């Protein structure tokens, strides 16, 4: 029996087209022959699938026909949730809005940068007092102290130890007033000064003016009598931008000279108390004098800007006159007259430094 004939038999059997006789015979064959049994099942399954498929196609076409009758577009318009105009504006134009916002932000930042808004950061101001903590320096000082002891044995002067902080200062009058920064001696228990020759004196803080960052000390030491006449004078008038300047101070344990020029009539963020000076300064320079080429003191070093090279600040000498006046007014026996005659005019730099170095002090602070 060919496969074709078998399939035909199976179809007739499944469709119930066989006579009772024929069906009995076929069912007997089916029971005996597993191959025929599986062919029947396979055929029934496949034709069943075909029928189901046909029904599905028919159902789909019925659904499509129904769908045709619905006015989908009108319905869709009605049923779409319309967001309010702000949301619509954002959806339709968000890329443009984003670009515009970015440009605006960029422009604002660029403008702020160019106008220097970012540089007005007070934290960039560094006060230049020096902390006395490094081991190397301690060792150096130990040696110095030994020398000082020897020196003091000879001259019977006070032996001093290493301080916690150090700055610079200079003589205000020959009678023993010394100027330094307020921030140098702030919170001090005791303050000593020491010049490059090694002469050290105990001092008393007699006047402070935090607003100008100025402090005045007076030597209060039995071994002190009087300085010689001050070689420099104090300038009362304003100094001009571009003037050659120099400073001397104690950023290390010996006197260091720094040269430069007056770079701006005002200090940090337009502070009128100070000049901006272009001078190499470091911690320890605070309180040092700023002199012009004729030997006039024009200011007191107070600090510098940390992120900007060559921007240091010096308190204008004008404020020293104010301070002198205040001290004079407040006491009867302390009369301060600032020297107005410089003996340095016309001398070379080296000669000038040589003359002034005894009047510039390292200010040592203990607390």
């Amino acid at each position: 029996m060919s496969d074709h004939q078998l399939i035909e038999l199976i179809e007739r059997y499944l469709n119930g087209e066989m006579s009772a006789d024929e069906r009995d015979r076929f069912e007997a064959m089916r029971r005996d022959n597993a191959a025929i049994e599986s062919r029947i099942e396979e055929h029934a399954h496949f034709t069943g699938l075909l029928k189901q498929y046909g029904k599905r196609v028919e159902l789909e076409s019925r659904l499509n026909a129904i769908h045709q009758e619905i006015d989908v577009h009108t319905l869709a318009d009605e049923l779409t949730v319309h967001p309010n105009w702000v949301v619509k504006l954002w959806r339709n134009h968000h890329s443009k809005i984003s670009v515009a916002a970015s440009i605006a932000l960029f422009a604002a930042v660029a403008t702020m940068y160019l106008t220097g808004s970012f540089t007005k950061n007070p934290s960039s101001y560094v006060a230049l007092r020096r902390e006395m903590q490094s081991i190397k320096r301690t060792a150096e000082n130990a040696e110095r102290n030994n020398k000082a002891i020897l020196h003091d044995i000879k001259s019977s002067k006070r032996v001093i130890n290493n301080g916690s902080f150090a700055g610079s200062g200079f003589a205000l009058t020959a009678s023993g007033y010394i100027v330094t920064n307020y921030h140098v001696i702030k919170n001090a228990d005791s303050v000593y000064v020491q010049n490059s020759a090694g002469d050290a004196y105990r001092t008393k803080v007699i006047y402070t003016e935090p607003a100008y960052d100025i402090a005045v000390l007076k030597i209060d030491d039995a071994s002190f009598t009087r300085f010689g006449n001050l070689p420099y004078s104090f300038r009362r008038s304003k100094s001009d931008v571009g003037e050659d300047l120099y400073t001397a101070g104690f950023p290390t344990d010996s006197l260091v000279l720094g040269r430069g020029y007056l770079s701006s009539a005002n200090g940090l963020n337009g502070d009128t108390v100070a000049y901006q000076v272009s001078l190499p300064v470091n911690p320890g320079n605070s309180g040092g004098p700023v002199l012009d080429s004729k030997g006039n003191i024009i200011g007191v070093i107070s600090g510098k800007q940390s992120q900007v090279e060559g921007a240091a600040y010096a308190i204008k000498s004008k404020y020293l006159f104010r301070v002198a006046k205040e001290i004079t007014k407040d006491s009867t026996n302390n009369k301060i007259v600032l020297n107005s005659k410089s003996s340095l005019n016309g001398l070379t730099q080296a000669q000038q430094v040589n003359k002034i170095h005894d009047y510039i002090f390292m200010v040592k602070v203990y607390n």
Partner: protein
Amino acid sequence: MSKAVNSSAPTDSEVIFGILNDSDAILKRLYVAYFPMVLQLIINNNGTTDDAKDVYQEAIIVLYNKVKSGKFELSSKLKTFLYSVCRKLWLKRLTQISRYGGDIKDFEEYLPVEDEGDLHTERDIQFEKMDGALKLLGEPCKTIIEDFYIHNHSMQDICERFGYTNADNAKTQKYKCLQRLKKLFFQQG
């Protein structure tokens, strides 16, 4: 928020009996009644009107098959059932095309749908294979097979329609066509 759904909606039991009796009228009323609800769901969740049609028809077929197979238990409103199935189908579709943003804007209550969609998909694969095989089969085989096995036409009708001189020729032809269809069908798997 949701628009009122067509008031001429058939009752749920009307729908069940309508499907069992192959009633065209009920099918139409059912379709028209709930299509707006599904359209609203789809077009407000990143879909088009065509997406809505596909999803809705798929859901109707799920319902249809469930009812026909006697497995359908009306544990909720029919409307909720259809909405839930559509919602599930659409979520699946959105995930497939990576357009699913993580939340779906809902307009109706819905129930969690377990596996209706999956059952349906298994059958769909078979039907797609059959569809592909029939397309490849070509004429006159396709019509012969469809007429005989789907539309239940007799061999006599087929003989006349295709001008075969005798029923045996037609039967031979039908046999060959069926063998080819089987081959094509199983090749696709």
